[in-house]
């Protein structure tokens, strides 16, 4: 034992102020640095820079120096009806995608948790939407929705349900059509998260409940759901954020059209920044988007969590 102890370097013994148990800290910093530097330079830094830009009149390709203009961008934004219309569409899209996505994913996860044949096939097929480039997902559904050569209209014609529509360019159908694609594209991630949550539910409780004569619905409410709740909340919150920030799908499907009916806030800000070169104004949009989504999520999560306590499920 003695020679081994002696071979330790002295640094190992000295516990720094926040030194964790065991191990020197200088070594740890050296290990962390390669990840920390790029994160600071290309992620944290730009984020702060972006917030500052929102208070300037920065434009692309301008020769005069950029000036501070205070909250002018935000004042303009407040009266920008086009932006708020786009924001409204973004919220409709985010909720319209997230809710059906959650319900469908919950159904699929419950099925996959059963001992069914063809389960492997469902798992294999679920890879398709998940692994595919979003651009290809968009292209693929354009082919499905295509007015003449699309399979959707052909199927409707075969079933005698009318002549079909020009789904993506119809004023009324464009947003619902795009929402369906959003649901399809995000289904696997949500299913996998929920399935992982399901596999953590205590089996014995299930069996005990079944012995006591509880039906499937009761078992779900009293055993499965309390255990699944935390996962369900987390994935729903993430889905709302991801969907609200979604860009590529709609860019390829409709590019915001027809007449702005599917112009998500991300598309709006992208055009403002990189087509019209209004960097400062677009950055202000970004700030507003983040702020509003953060507040909505905080309210949603706070409400849900409190509800859980009241229910007394011990979640």
């Amino acid at each position, binding site marked *: 034992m003695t020679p081994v102890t002696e071979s330790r370097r002295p640094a190992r013994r000295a516990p720094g102020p926040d030194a964790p148990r065991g191990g020197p800290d200088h070594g740890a910093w050296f290990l962390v640095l*390669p990840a920390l530097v790029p994160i600071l330079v290309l992620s944290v830094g730009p*984020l702060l820079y972006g917030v500052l830009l929102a208070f300037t009149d920065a434009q692309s390709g301008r020769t005069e120096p950029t000036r501070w203009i205070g909250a002018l961008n935000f004042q303009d934004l407040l009266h920008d009806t086009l932006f708020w219309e786009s924001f409204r569409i973004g919220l409709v899209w985010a909720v319209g995608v997230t809710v059906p996505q959650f319900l469908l994913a919950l159904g699929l996860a419950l099925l996959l948790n059963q001992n069914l044949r063809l389960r492997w096939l469902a798992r294999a097929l679920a*890879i398709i939407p998940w692994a595919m480039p*979003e*651009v290809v997902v968009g292209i693929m559904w354009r*082919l499905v929705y295509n007015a003449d050569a699309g399979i959707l209209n052909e199927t409707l014609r075969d079933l005698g349900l009318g002549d079909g529509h020009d789904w993506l360019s119809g004023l009324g159908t464009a947003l619902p059509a795009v929402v369906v694609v959003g649901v399809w594209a995000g289904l696997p991630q949500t299913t996998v998260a929920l399935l992982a949550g399901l596999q953590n539910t205590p089996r014995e409780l299930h069996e005990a409940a079944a012995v006591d004569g509880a039906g499937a619905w009761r078992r779900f409410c009293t055993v499965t759901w309390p255990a699944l709740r935390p996962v369900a909340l987390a994935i729903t919150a993430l889905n709302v954020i991801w969907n609200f920030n979604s860009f590529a799908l709609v860019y390829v499907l409709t590019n915001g059209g027809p007449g702005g009916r599917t112009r998500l806030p991300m598309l709006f800000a992208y055009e403002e*920044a990189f087509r019209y070169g209004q960097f400062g104004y*677009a950055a202000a949009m970004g700030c507003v988007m983040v702020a509003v989504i953060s507040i909505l999520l905080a309210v949603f999560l706070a409400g849900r969590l409190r509800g859980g306590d009241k229910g007394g499920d011990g979640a």
Partner: protein
Amino acid sequence: MRTSKGARAGQYAALLAYLVFLAFPFLWLISVAFKPPRELAGLHPTWIPENPTLDNFRQAFDEQPLLHAGLNSLVAALGAAVIAVLVATPAAYVMARRRGRFAKAATGWVVVSQAFPFVLLIIPLFLVLKNLGLINSVAGLVMVYVVWSLPFALWMLAGYVRAVPRELEEAAAVDGAGPLRTLVSVTAPLLAPGIVATALFAFVTAWNEFFFALVLLKTPEKQTLPVVLTHFIGAEGVADLGPLAAAAFLATLPSLVVFALVQRRITGGMLAGAVKS
């Protein structure tokens, strides 16, 4: 627990509906990719092409620089995957093994970064990269992809590190190995499957990425596959469906293959062996 026959039938019907919903768009993409123009123009399209052809693929390569774009995508995705893993593994190790301020901050950042607003990030990033002369360059894109895939890589790798028994590392420390030495010669070999899985995920993410590539790459000879694919769609949204489908199908194959590999990989095996012996 027994399930009644009626319920079972219902379950199978539901599962079948899911299978159809998940699979049909992709099957339709394949169908269109192999159809000759005449079948695409006519009414009443069929699931199975009557006269399957490879012309769409030939035409797709003629219309757009697909090969070159594929190469750009490959460089960007490989670069991002390798660098992300090299940079993330040591940090994930610290994250998993220490309880200090860094571990907390890192975990917090991983969570917050999931909510990163790309709009807010892309404009300053564009300006920063422009000042560095890294606009319209695959190298600049790789840097962005590395940072972008870091949260996920850190989170995944930290999980794999936690699965490596501490006793092994403590034994190495007792033998006088420093943290770097311990990481390289004891932990990293056991992490190999996890590192490969993380790299493959980072690869697929970068291969599929569109938004950053669209903003940062300006000229066609620098652009990656997803950006070039959108060139098949004309200004008025009119597209030559056959070549579009063919190119989209080809661009998806690498993602599907790599992703299938990660999904099937079994992680436990190597670890179990190490603990037993």
